[in-house]
């Protein structure tokens, strides 16, 4: 019913908590290792986060309507393989072709989820198997990119001192932010996330909205694959697979509710930076990188517990 003063304070705290976490993390790391706060290392840090930023952006759109995309990292890996194979012969049109394909794959997953009423985590879990399987079949090992590299290589340059890929990822995120705020599509995404039945009865084309959200998720998986090729000069069938958990962690630690309908891409940007700093931090304090997934796991559980919209949940499965 009504929110109490305490709840209101809580929600204000929650709104700023991710930024505070980021600042505290940076401060602690700067204290342990002062050189970490240098311009150079921060630049490396953001450069490292572009793949994660692409994935987390795609993931956010799906989570906002109340779904989840578990296939996004596998699709990015598949994209890296396809891009590595196609830029050789087809050049830029080949790259665009792959992006169109991943977008279509995303849309198809969205259609199956919405039309056949299969929970999104089931559809995309199956997708995870399908796309990583396909990638492994096409390319059992690393595919080096030599002749066609300039098609993706521009991502590896710098504009105004920051890496082009990061600038591109932020620009892409901002354009989706604009879509979510100023286009009916955005309103529909939040409406479905907050109350799908009422959205349906209001005449919203729920299937279409979900398809579009998943299509965007597929497109951003393609972008992530593209950036992977640019960074490693190659395509690899499992290159992005390990980023699934971090990308979900970034979304939820930014404060977007896993239950859908609340949060946004500004929060995801902060979330991605938190994860990136966390990752560097693990290295700085001298822990084995094997501890990384452990940290993501804790972050996911902690952040979800804090941000979940309990009023929407009747049964927890």
């Amino acid at each position, binding site marked *: *019913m*009504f*929110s*109490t*003063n305490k709840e*209101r304070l809580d929600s204000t705290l929650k709104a700023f908590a991710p930024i505070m976490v980021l600042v505290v993390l940076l401060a602690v790391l700067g204290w342990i290792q002062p050189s970490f706060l240098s311009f150079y290392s921060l630049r490396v840090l953001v450069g490292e986060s572009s793949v994660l930023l692409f994935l987390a952006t795609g993931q956010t759109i799906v989570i906002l309507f109340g779904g989840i995309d578990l296939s996004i990292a596998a699709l990015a890996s598949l994209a890296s393989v396809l891009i590595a194979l196609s830029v050789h012969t087809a050049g830029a049109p080949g790259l665009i072709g792959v992006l169109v394909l991943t977008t279509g794959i995303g849309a198809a997953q969205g259609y199956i989820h919405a039309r056949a009423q299969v929970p999104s985590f089931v559809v995309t879990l199956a997708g995870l198997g399908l796309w990583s399987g396909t990638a492994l079949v096409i390319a059992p090992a690393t595919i080096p990119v030599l002749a066609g590299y300039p098609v993706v290589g521009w991502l590896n340059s710098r504009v105004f001192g920051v890496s082009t890929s990061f600038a591109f990822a932020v620009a892409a995120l901002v354009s989706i932010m604009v879509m979510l*705020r*100023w*286009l*009916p599509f955005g*309103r529909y995404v*939040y*409406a479905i996330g*907050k*109350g799908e*039945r*009422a*959205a*349906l*009865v*209001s*005449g*919203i*084309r729920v299937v279409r909205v979900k398809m579009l959200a998943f299509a965007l998720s597929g497109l951003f998986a393609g972008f992530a694959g593209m950036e992977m090729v640019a960074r490693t000069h190659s395509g690899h069938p499992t290159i992005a697979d390990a980023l699934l958990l971090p990308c979900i962690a970034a979304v939820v630690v930014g404060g977007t509710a896993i239950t859908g*309908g*609340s949060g946004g891409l500004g929060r995801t940007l902060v979330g991605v930076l938190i994860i990136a700093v966390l990752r560097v931090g693990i290295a700085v304090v001298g822990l084995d990188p094997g501890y990384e997934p452990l940290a993501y796991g804790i972050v996911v559980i902690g952040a979800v517990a804090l941000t979940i*919209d309990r*009023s929407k949940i009747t049964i927890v499965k």
Partner: protein
Amino acid sequence: MMEAVLRIDHLDKSFPGVQALDDVSINVGANEVVGLVGENGAGKSTLLKLIAGIDQADSGHINVRGREVSLHSVAAANDAGIGMVFQEQSLLPNVSVAENILLGHEKEAIRFGFYDWPKLNQLAAVQLGKLDAKIPPDAQTDTLSFVERQLVEFAKVLAIEERTHHEPLILLDEPTSVLEGEELETVLDQIERLREHASLIFVSHRLDEVLRVSDRIYVMTNGRCVAERDPKQCELAELQQLMLGQALGAEYDRKVTAHAVTEAATVRLSVRELRRQGCYDAVSFDIHVGEVLGIAGVEGSGREVLCRTLFGAEGVDGGEILLDGQLMCFGGCDEAVQAGIGYVPAERRTEGIIGGLSVKENMTLAHLEEVLLGPFLDLKREKEVASHWVERLQIRTPSAETPATNLSGGNQQKVVLSKWLMAKNLKILIMDHPMRGLDVGAKAEIFVLIRELAQSGIGIILIADTLDELIALSNTIIVMRDGYISQRFTVSETSPTRLQILEHMV
């Protein structure tokens, strides 16, 4: 004065911007039925929630059988002998009646970690026996009718008696709001029977019921308990007056019939031999410009499904729907909305509004094209449109940015209405129980609104809560029984009586 089972002294409870309860003191005697009436937002639900342990008071005292208690959780309230029957039924559909009745307290019927089924059924039968209900304890719950399930809820609450060794205090939050006719009688009879085993607080919007069942009535307005009445010396009109703090306007005089619709008026919607397997068959009717078509029928008569079909939410197996002479074939709600049909669903909280969205966002959700500038949302215009409707329908909300969930039921319903009214092409408005769960004042407002809408030329299909409302609002009434139209009435100088309609319903 009997010994008080429950005594509440000076209870206060506030939410941001709202004093929900202000110095409320009531008491309930043993085996007494206490009625609690008041408009939506008067504080009845808040009070019940405090007593049931769902919410906690800011200050004040609650005494149960002379001992002060702290009702910090539902379990604590249960231990104090207090149980609540919820508005929305809270039974598990896929287990037996006995399991539901003893849910969470089946210890006695467990041997070596396993259910002792005969014992469980016997324990449940004891509770059902108190109600003289002929429901087999081993029946699966979802095979029961709505009323039977309500009785199981009662039995579940009665089981508190065995655990606390006291007769329980039962809180009934609108147990009758979705019932009609015979089913209503069954539940009211059961309330009489409950009285022999328990003390009751009964909340209902139907004042005649409250007058009939209660031993004492408290009237609440604006979070205060303003009056205490003996139903034997109190008239319906007096209660209404106390609730509203003023006399009801002539607007709510149900004898005033809707404005006349001329025979010559153009047909808006024409339904021809519509059929849906297992739901309804051979349904034909016309709705003219400005006409209110009321549909009467019991549950299962097919009228709800028919309405959902006309809104594109269900398919058809045969027949035609013509809107302004054009053949319609709705593949989904979105197509119906595009064509100019609006739908006010009975399930306001899940289908009508989206609680987490603001009043403004709820209003424009169905027709965002009205506030578009090119492909983009014109947020300034949206704000203007929303304020216009807040003012036009006198929606009581701090602002258009307030989450819709913070509004009272009547104001939420107005938000749902404005969602459809803002479309310039609105032709047909389907209203499924538009006044369900609303208090007298809000009902009167919606009532007037429906008339105004009809006058403006919109065709209205109405399923009402009571036959009185249906008769008062409709120009034409069709009665449905078992999926067929069993009778048609034209409401003019001579309205059909409730009895006449009822005859064709069952």
